[in-house]
């Protein structure tokens, strides 16, 4: 089922690549995608794609907002000589369980300007995040956990 979904996604990508939104082109893409999934079967076939489309859209907008906001913060810091920075590395315990969840979270953290996922502990329980603006370590931890992580997990689960 998940594979079929992945196949559809690949078919769709193909269509976009070919700039031809025709039915036939989707079939082509589906065929090619099928081949690729066959080639890549094994390690790479347990897919979990966008099951909750509306939540997803909401999440995207939330994230874009965060993104732009943070960008301004950083931009301001870059162009002005004032130093507002209080950087540091913070360990954040993870609620996210699967690799995909962890990865997505880490990437989203990184994508947000000012923060950077540096590492995940081997037992996948903790993520280490570098941030440029840490007023308070605990505050920061909570901010991530209740903001990004929770919203993400809502979409994912």
């Amino acid at each position: 089922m998940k594979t079929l979904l992945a196949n559809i996604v690949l078919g769709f990508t193909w269509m976009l690549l070919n700039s031809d939104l025709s039915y036939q082109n989707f079939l082509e893409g589906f065929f090619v995608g099928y081949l690729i999934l066959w080639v890549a079967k094994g390690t790479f076939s347990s897919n979990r794609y966008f099951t909750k489309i509306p939540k997803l859209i909401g999440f995207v907008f939330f994230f874009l907002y965060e993104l732009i906001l943070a960008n301004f913060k950083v931009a301001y810091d870059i162009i002005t000589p004032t130093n507002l920075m209080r950087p540091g590395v913070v360990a954040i315990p993870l609620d996210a369980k699967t690799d995909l969840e962890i990865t997505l979270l880490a990437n989203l953290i990184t994508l947000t300007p000012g923060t950077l996922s540096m590492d995940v502990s081997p037992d996948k329980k903790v993520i280490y995040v570098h941030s440029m603006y840490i007023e308070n370590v605990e505050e920061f931890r909570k901010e991530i956990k209740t903001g990004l992580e929770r919203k993400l997990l809502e979409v994912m689960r």
Partner: protein
Amino acid sequence: MYSVILKTATKYLTPLMLLFAFFLLLRGHNEPGGGFVGGLVAAAAYALMVISYGVKTARKELKYAPLSFIILGLSIALISGIPALLVSETYFTGLWTEMKFPVIGKLGTPLIFDIGVFFLVIGITTKIIFTLAEEDQE
């Protein structure tokens, strides 16, 4: 190299890269791309696997030995010139079908030749990278 993030990303990136590789190969005759770049992108997918999962996994994922791809590529390239001989044209003279095929469009021996290039490039790139990585990761 152990990184959940990289591993997971690789897992989702590689099919996309392979898809893109096919895309580049098939449309190369009309748009930028072609067998060579297509092959390189496909090989890049396996290079990524080598780094994130190790050579063993990458080899397993490739399914056939790189050398087989090399042989396949060279053979296709060699053979693609032969049909011309059968209709008493010079070697490498392009022959085209009138019919349009799905996925590929018009089929012709030069396209087959390009497919040979594609496989060869996959073969040689993976062969080189696997060999080096094996020595390195031992």
